[in-house]
């Protein structure tokens, strides 16, 4: 019961936070130079419409009056958000923003979630080994691999992999998330094409985030190794495998929060990778929205990122109270 009350409070606070960020982005986005409605209006005039026709067309397309004062637009916007309506896109000629975002999200989720989980698992394991064997060559090589991969920018890694595996050795296909000749659906050729196209972008993401996980885990493990209870378990003759379990369990705690937040930030997409490998994910969407001054799409995308980060934060807190008894009440 107490947990439910706490959870309820957290969710309420989360909603307030989402609205606060939504307000902030609403004004921030409108501070950008350029006016898309005016641009569309001018375009329609150039196509030969009369000013009245053009005005009606614009109003119909976007569902709001471009001459309303900002505060009225803001109130309307907040009201719409509370009704889970994110408005219509400007650059996609009036398609509801929510549809566009939901269409792009799966691509990003495939790409980033797979890469995130792969890099987390491999990075954490490598970090444990690197810390325990830090005086041996194995440990040095692992640490070095982490530092180097952490240092290579994502777009360099992406271009490098693309060059090596799609040009030098043509092992994987380049560009597009799947072979356009196939019909999307639950059939084998489509799924295998999907997987083959995903290998390089996922590998790029995984390789460039591996170093961060590995180095963080290594330093966390080294801290735990200095703790009294590790020496104590050695002195009590606890088996090595159990000791490693003790160490890993204690060392991984600080990484949980970072991992949960990364899942939240996932909805920001991975702009460089999506751009290089031509993935129609959220990163490309955001880029497109910014380039075409598509305010509703931009605020919608930002709102999604905000909500995802806040939700994953609440989730991380609760997960923490499960894995760490000291946080429990």
């Amino acid at each position: 019961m107490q947990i439910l009350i706490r959870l309820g409070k957290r969710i309420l606070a989360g909603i307030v936070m989402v609205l606060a960020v939504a307000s902030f982005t609403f004004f921030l986005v409108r501070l950008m130079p350029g006016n898309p409605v005016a641009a569309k209006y001018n375009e329609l005039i150039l196509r030969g419409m009369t000013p009245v026709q053009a005005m009606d067309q614009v109003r119909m397309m976007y569902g709001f009056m471009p001459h309303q004062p900002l505060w009225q637009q803001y109130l309307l916007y907040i009201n719409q958000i509370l009704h889970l309506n994110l408005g219509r896109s400007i650059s996609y000629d009036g398609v509801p923003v929510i549809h566009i975002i939901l269409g792009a999200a799966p691509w990003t989720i495939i790409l980033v979630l797979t890469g995130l989980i792969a890099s987390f698992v491999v990075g954490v394991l490598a970090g444990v080994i690197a810390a325990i064997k830090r005086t041996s060559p194995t440990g040095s090589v692992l640490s070095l691999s982490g530092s180097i991969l952490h240092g290579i920018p994502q777009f360099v890694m992406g271009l490098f992999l693309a060059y090596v595996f799609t040009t030098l050795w043509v092992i994987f296909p380049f560009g597009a998330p799947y072979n356009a000749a196939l019909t999307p659906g639950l059939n084998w050729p489509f799924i295998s094409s999907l997987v083959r196209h995903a290998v390089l972008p996922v590998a790029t993401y995984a390789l460039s985030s591996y170093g961060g996980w590995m180095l963080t885990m290594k330093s966390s493990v080294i801290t735990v190794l200095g703790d009294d209870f590790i020496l104590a378990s050695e002195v009590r003759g606890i088996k090595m495998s159990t000791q490693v379990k003790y160490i890993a369990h204690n060392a991984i705690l600080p990484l949980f929060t970072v991992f949960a937040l990364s899942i939240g930030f996932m909805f920001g997409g991975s702009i460089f990778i999506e751009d290089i490998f031509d993935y129609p994910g959220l990163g490309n969407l955001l880029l497109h929205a910014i380039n075409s001054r598509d305010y509703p799409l931009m605020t919608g995308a930002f709102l999604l990122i905000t909500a995802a980060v806040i939700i994953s934060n609440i989730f991380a807190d609760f997960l923490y109270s499960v894995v760490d008894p000291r946080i429990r009440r």
Partner: protein
Amino acid sequence: MAAEFEARDFHARGVQIRNLRVSYQTPQGDIPAVNGVNLSIAPGKITGIIGESGSGKSTLAMALMNTVPRPGRIISGSVVVDGIGDMLTIDKESRRRAHGRHLGFVFQASQNSLNPLRRIGAQVLDLGRSHNVKDLRALIKRAKELLGKMGLNADRVLLSYQHELSGGMRQRVGIMFALVLDARVVILDEPTTALDMLSQASVLQIVRQIHQERHLTTVLISHDMGVVADLADNVVVMYGGELAEQGSTEEVLAHPLHPYTQGLIKAIPRISGPLDQAVALPGLPPDSAALMAHGCLFAGRCPKRLPVCGESRPTYESVGQGRYVACFRVAGHD
């Protein structure tokens, strides 16, 4: 395996330390922490090892287990435990099995000697599985017995996490872990340092009681002459990584031979009587330069120093039944 517990052997085990050297590797060179210690720990007795911070007593305790943490390193010597062999040369797996099973260790920092993320009971089971105890139920029963004997609510403690226990309770849990596998030799490294006076007294009482009941060989390491005097049968005084004096507790307290021991005894404050009767020992423990020098380690602080003390180091010699001292002032050296 269950029978193994029931048939407890009541033969106390002794420990022979020969020419033990441990040093800490630092950028300034190796600093000896334990320097050529020869010591026989009598079976069935409580041996108190006393010394100031930095005298090497905790390092000696860790070396008994062959678990000196880095950057410390055992250079040479042997630690022969009766029935096990030389802890410094047996293979890693036998050494691990000896830990906990034959040699119990209670930590200076027993406060934090448990995995904070696991219940105490689960950790008792981890200990049992590590030592191939088949009857884990019996192990838990023994853990409960021990905890109950120490005045704790055993069921509650086994279901608790470390952070839910007080300092005194944790220290008792640490003692339980050292004894639950029926270790015959128990090493207590400053078991009461972090406790308040009342917990201290009750923990010492427990140590004495269990020592007697189980015919243990107990090594008690402390900087507190009062604690050692109260509990130990024999006293060993360490100074600068070397032994200064040893003998039965009554002998050493009544007739301390080494000027350092004399200083330590004078420095004990008493509750009755004026406080200024306790005389602090002047000077500081030897630094690394003094450890490397030829003279007696205590020469710099010694009120009775002779010219010879600055030139060579006195050897550790027998001056009677179980009585040893390293001082030029004591007969037998000239």
